[in-house]
């Protein structure tokens, strides 16, 4: 209760321009809410959050098979000896690609074709890593035991860097990988 008691009637329902403002606010809420699913289907820029359980050993075996079948070269990071050499692999257009995060390396490097759609299977072998594609800055988590599938169509050519953005121990800051788009 305030210092002086309120005089009745103390409540006045919305009227006139107040109703217009409230109406606009509610309408805008609907627009914003509907934009999310609309843009998901129209803009095709969102991940659908497709994920499966997988044993890390199985995922490693699948990746090794994928690397052996599609290897086109090797890549060595020029400034970072810690990362070692990784194979460069080109998945068949429209096919599946496998990408492993592990302490502290992204394996393998991928070479993709502009305009083709790929299913990138993302997982970690040891502990949690974060797939962060630079300079676009798209981030997804790579969790051991999960096969996280990103459906992806490269639209611009160039060299993209994957940095790890989930804390994974002492080598976290130097854990990088590569995706080349031609």
């Amino acid at each position, binding site marked *: 209760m305030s210092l002086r008691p309120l005089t009745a009637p103390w409540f006045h329902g919305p009227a006139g321009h107040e109703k217009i403002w409230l109406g606009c606010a509610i309408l805008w809420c609907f627009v914003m809410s509907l934009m999310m699913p609309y843009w998901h289907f129209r803009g095709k820029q969102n991940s659908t959050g497709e994920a499966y359980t997988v044993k890390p050993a199985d995922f490693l075996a699948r990746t090794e098979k994928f690397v052996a079948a599609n290897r086109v070269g090797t890549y060595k990071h020029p400034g970072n000896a810690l990362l070692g050499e990784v194979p460069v692999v080109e998945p068949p257009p429209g096919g599946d690609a496998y990408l492993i995060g592990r302490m502290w390396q992204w394996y393998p490097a991928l070479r993709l074709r502009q305009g083709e759609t790929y299913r990138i299977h993302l997982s970690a072998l040891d502990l949690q890593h974060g797939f962060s594609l630079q300079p676009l800055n798209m981030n997804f988590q790579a969790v051991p*035991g*999960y096969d996280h599938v990103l459906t992806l169509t490269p639209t611009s050519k160039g060299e993209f860097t994957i940095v790890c953005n989930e804390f994974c121990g002492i080598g976290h800051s130097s854990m990088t990988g590569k995706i080349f788009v031609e």
Partner: protein
Amino acid sequence: MAEALAKNAYTGGAHAPAKKATFDLFARPTAKTGLVSWLTTVDHKKIGMLYGGFAIIFFLIGGLEALMIRTQLMVPNNRFITAQLYNELFTMHGTTMIFLAVMPLNAAFFNLLVPIQVGARDVAFPRLNAFSLWVWVVGAILLNVGWLSHFSDALKGFGGAPDAGWFGYAPLTSRTFTPDLSTDLWVLGLQVLGLSSIVASLNFIVTIINMRAPGLTMMRLPVFTWMALVTSFLLILALPAIAIALVEVMMDRNFGTSFFEVSGGGQPILWQHLFWVFGHPEVYILILPPMGYVSEILPTFARKPLFGYPIVVFSGVAIGFIGFGVWSHHMFTTGMGNVATAAFALATMAIAVPTGVKIFNWIGTLWGGQIMTRVPMMFALGFIWMFMLGGFSGVMHAAAPADAQQQDTYFVIAHFHYVLIGGATFALLAAIHFWFPKFFGRMVPEFWGKVSFWLIFVGFNCTFFPMHFLGLNGMPRRTWTYDSNMGWNEGNLFATLGAYLLGIGIFTYFAVLIYSYFKGKVAGSDPWDARTLEWSIPSPPPEHNFAAIPTVHARDAWWYEKHHKEEIAKEKAEHIKAEESHGGIHMPDQSWYPLFSAFGLLVGAYNFAQIHQPLVLFGNQVSASHLPLAITGGVIMVAALYLWALEGPGGYHLHLGPDGKVTESRGDH
């Protein structure tokens, strides 16, 4: 029996003399000053000051950790500190600021203010209150003891401070990846802090619901007390989730289970769910009490009652409820699927509504008021502005597609520092400045208060605003260093310089407080012409708070009293007479046992953390494991709790003389 007791209490008959069925192993301490009085105190004001003092020390330590982090990130490829130390620093910066600075500062204000604002003489369970404090100290020691390994080679056994991040994502916390003792201590330290919080929360819930003065209905409670109540419920409901998660980590580390071990069929994602179902309500645990301080400070300095009081209260409650349904917005990028993502995105956006309502109410409070820009008001106004900015970026995270660009980048760091420094810390600094005259009896100089405000305000914005851009440019969190070709150089340099300015501001703020403690102008009982009951009693408050328990007639109880002096004086005289006829003002006795049981917990938890390691003293192996010492600690704790139960409630009476002098009596009256 219960009926008879209740009848006796209500009919005003004298209490039956206490039966001598108690057992004191140690004489009950009665010292009112000196070290013993602080170690054994059950007075909510002293406990609040201890909480506050320890919390400010940890706040400054956490700040130093932050400055070291910022120095390391000032330039690319910096080698100021090692990657290992960097990991320890950011882990402990987060853990310290949340659990050892902001939470205990809030606990300090709960202790200092809640009993007085509800018109009570102490909390419902004074000894339990002391127990919460000392258990909190145990948790703080367990978390920080690892730092010692950096100072002496003899203490290398800790393996440094915890270094797995404050979020401790499994399986990084497994024995394989963090074999050091520090992670075990981190797990038990958080567990112990949780215990402290649950005990304190129960205490405050009972105090607020049961110990309100006559006439103080729930809808007349000061908003701060309401927020303390909501926060206490949040703590009780949220902490069990992290307790279970921490037990699972402990089992994985020490006893060979596989809750989070993928090779054993475990699920690392389970940790994320359990951690965030605690971690998100925790965010509101940090921010709801600051919303309470601001709701007290704004009306005082706008010279108006709080605008829309019931809506402010219900919004706080609504935030508490919805806060339990938003945790997976921390996991949008784990691949949860569209339905879960959409549900949590909508819930997260929904929580912005009651938050926005509160902000409108605060602005409504200012509207048409006679605004006095004293220092607490400046911080409170800063809170509204900065918290709003943090809220805006919060809504941006809630949009799941946008979150994919922000997940674990510096954008997130910018966001939560805007809500936790611009929000919680600004409100806490406002509150410290506002209630300082009440509890220390001295004013803080206006000029220097304002200097520190502007240093903090400018420094804070220079530090964290550039981080929005760094984040959107892809700078990931928790990286020790970065390459110079990433485009992050200028932003980081600017942020670091801002951090130094912020550090100077914080230093000025506390230096001024220390100066005021000794040399400040003596404050009266009501220097701000404020509205709630704590301003109706002398500064600093006497041990028994109120000479007469007040009767509350209005929401702004003390403003009402100031305008109805005769009516109130008559009432108070009657209350004093009635209380004297009951035997006087009943005060609780001090006790050693809360401290002793917490000590037992420290010994037990510290040794339990390293239970499989051999016990080495002065270079000799004494025992194959730490089990005997862990058991000893447990025995000390249980024995102290048992003796605590045996010592009985104790207590003595205070009598007010006609000249206002207070005399003490013990035993039968």
